[in-house]
């Protein structure tokens, strides 16, 4: 059961070698993971939209889409068809080329990143030895393409949304990138497979002190990187209409939507791989563990969406620069100390240092409540 998909893969390759000329067989062998990802990506995206709408509905004590198909299972198809048939309006003064290019450019990194995720034991499309760094680089490029989308639609709202989203993604990218460093320090290699192998059985990194803090920071920054609540300032419906994708309709808007949900999947998959031990788990087959962890993280993200109000712009920035960044720096140092101190009480020291830093940072960031002012001349008495 564990190596189910690997056996399927081998079977197809054997069949290809038997039937096709050998160079064609090699191409087929290379193409299998590509086809798998090309199917898996959009399908997960479609059913994530459905799961999100169902979950949010249940949180708000109502049903969720259950008209189309048995339990609303065909709703994503209906949305897809609707998006296809919707008219594609391009603003008259918009920068035609950039307006068309932006959605395409946003989907490419979202799809490329699937190649680096270890779905199960030796079930990884490309075992890059810079796996995690490749992921971070790809998520870095989406910032630029979001801004091209905002600038190309020649509309004040989308430009404002674009500026806000770029500011947010840059300020959350630094803690996002640096909170993985402790794991790399301990594992010693970028490759995702090596990271997962370094967490055998139940020794996941999240149970170490620096791992827990790292997981907290990495997950928060992941939510911010994907522009989801409570950090969805760029698409704030209330004030910015729809942020950077205001002027998009029809299939282009669907591409933005698809990129967002694929990013949600890949980012929570990376968090699961780096901190929750990827496909490591006691009994269940490896890929079941991987999907289980990723989907719990996705559900937590959707749970966030059902609970939290939107953060103000300055709170958003303050949180990243004044709290997360310092915590990440300390976390890296603590991980190094923990790694060097072989003695068993390294957990204690690491935990102690981290708790002290968290308390100190909270003191610094405490919003100072002004003392009650006394207006000498206001009172008539």
């Amino acid at each position, binding site marked *: 059961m564990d190596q189910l998909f690997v056996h399927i893969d081998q079977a197809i390759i054997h069949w290809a070698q038997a039937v096709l000329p050998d160079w064609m067989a090699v191409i087929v062998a290379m193409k299998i993971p590509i086809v798998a990802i090309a199917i898996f990506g959009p399908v997960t995206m479609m059913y994530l939209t459905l799961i999100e709408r169902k*979950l949010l509905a*249940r*949180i*708000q*004590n*109502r*049903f969720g889409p*259950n008209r189309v198909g048995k339990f609303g299972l065909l709703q994503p198809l209906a949305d897809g068809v609707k998006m296809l048939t919707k008219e594609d309006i391009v603003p008259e003064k918009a920068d035609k080329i950039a307006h068309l290019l932006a959605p395409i450019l946003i989907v490419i990194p979202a799809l490329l990143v699937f190649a680096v995720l270890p779905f199960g034991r030796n079930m990884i499309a490309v075992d890059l030895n810079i796996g995690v760094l490749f992921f971070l680089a790809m998520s870095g490029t989406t910032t630029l393409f979001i801004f091209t989308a905002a600038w190309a639609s020649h509309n004040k709202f989308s430009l404002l949304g674009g500026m806000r989203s770029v500011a947010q993604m840059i300020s959350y990218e630094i803690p996002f990138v640096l909170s993985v460093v402790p794991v790399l320090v301990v594992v010693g290699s970028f490759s995702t497979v090596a990271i997962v192998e370094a967490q055998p059985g139940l020794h996941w990194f999240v149970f170490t002190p620096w791992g827990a803090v790292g997981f907290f920071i990495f997950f928060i920054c992941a939510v911010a990187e994907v522009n989801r609540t409570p950090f969805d300032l760029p698409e704030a419906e209330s004030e910015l209409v729809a942020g950077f994708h205001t002027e998009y309709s029809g299939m282009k808007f669907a591409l933005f939507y698809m990129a967002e949900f694929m990013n949600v999947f890949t980012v929570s998959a990376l968090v699961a791989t780096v901190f929750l031990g990827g496909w490591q788990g006691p009994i269940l087959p490896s890929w079941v563990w991987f999907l289980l962890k990723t989907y719990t993280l996705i559900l937590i993200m959707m*749970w966030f969406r*059902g*609970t*939290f109000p939107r953060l103000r712009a300055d709170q958003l920035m303050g949180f990243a620069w004044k709290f997360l960044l310092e915590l990440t720096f300390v976390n890296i140092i603590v991980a190094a100390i923990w790694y060097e101190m072989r003695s068993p009480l390294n957990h204690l020291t690491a935990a102690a240092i981290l708790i002290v830093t*968290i*308390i100190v940072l*909270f003191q610094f960031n405490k919003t100072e409540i002004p003392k009650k002012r006394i207006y000498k001349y206001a009172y008539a008495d």
Partner: protein
Amino acid sequence: MFGIGVLKGMAVTFKNFVESYYKKERLTTIEYPEKRLAEKERFRNFPFLIFDEKPEDPRCVACDICAKECPPQCITIVRAQDAQGKPLKKPATFDIDYSICMNCGVCEEVCPFDAIFMDHEFELAEYGRFEDLNYTIDRLLKPKEHFMKIRPTDATRIEAELKKKENAKKAAAEKAAAAAKAKAEAAKTQASQVPDTKPETKPNEPAQPADPPAEAK
């Protein structure tokens, strides 16, 4: 401690999420076409005409009061005439233009013969806007039982009044018949004493459609 508010908020939504699965009163949405919400009794939508047994003779006597009273003037009635052209107490055509009617219920109040009432039917989508929504008499007529079913209290009250009026009429008719009989005997006794040349005319029955004895439900 720090961030407890965040966890409390999450706990609330989690409770909401979990309870919506097993607590029935949390999910109040009625999935409309399959399950319906019973209308309130006094709910009034477009009017309809009542007939007692046969759709041919509705209670309506084409007195035209409702047509006059109707605020948006959407009722048009044409009185029926028999072969010789004598007007009958029956409408030949009775049109209500549902696209104009604002279901105010004035026609129901002003109708002296309790012939027109407000219905509970509201799924009346049509294809044509003009001719389809102009309801003629055959689409308006509905049996008495329908009225009893949708508005039991009003129906019973009105039935009771009708029955009382009927009894009163029947009693009046019997009294009149008895009086006529008594006068007849008196006349006969007089005639026997003094032959009277004037022929007795039996007081004729008031031209009243014979109302079937309405059995009280």
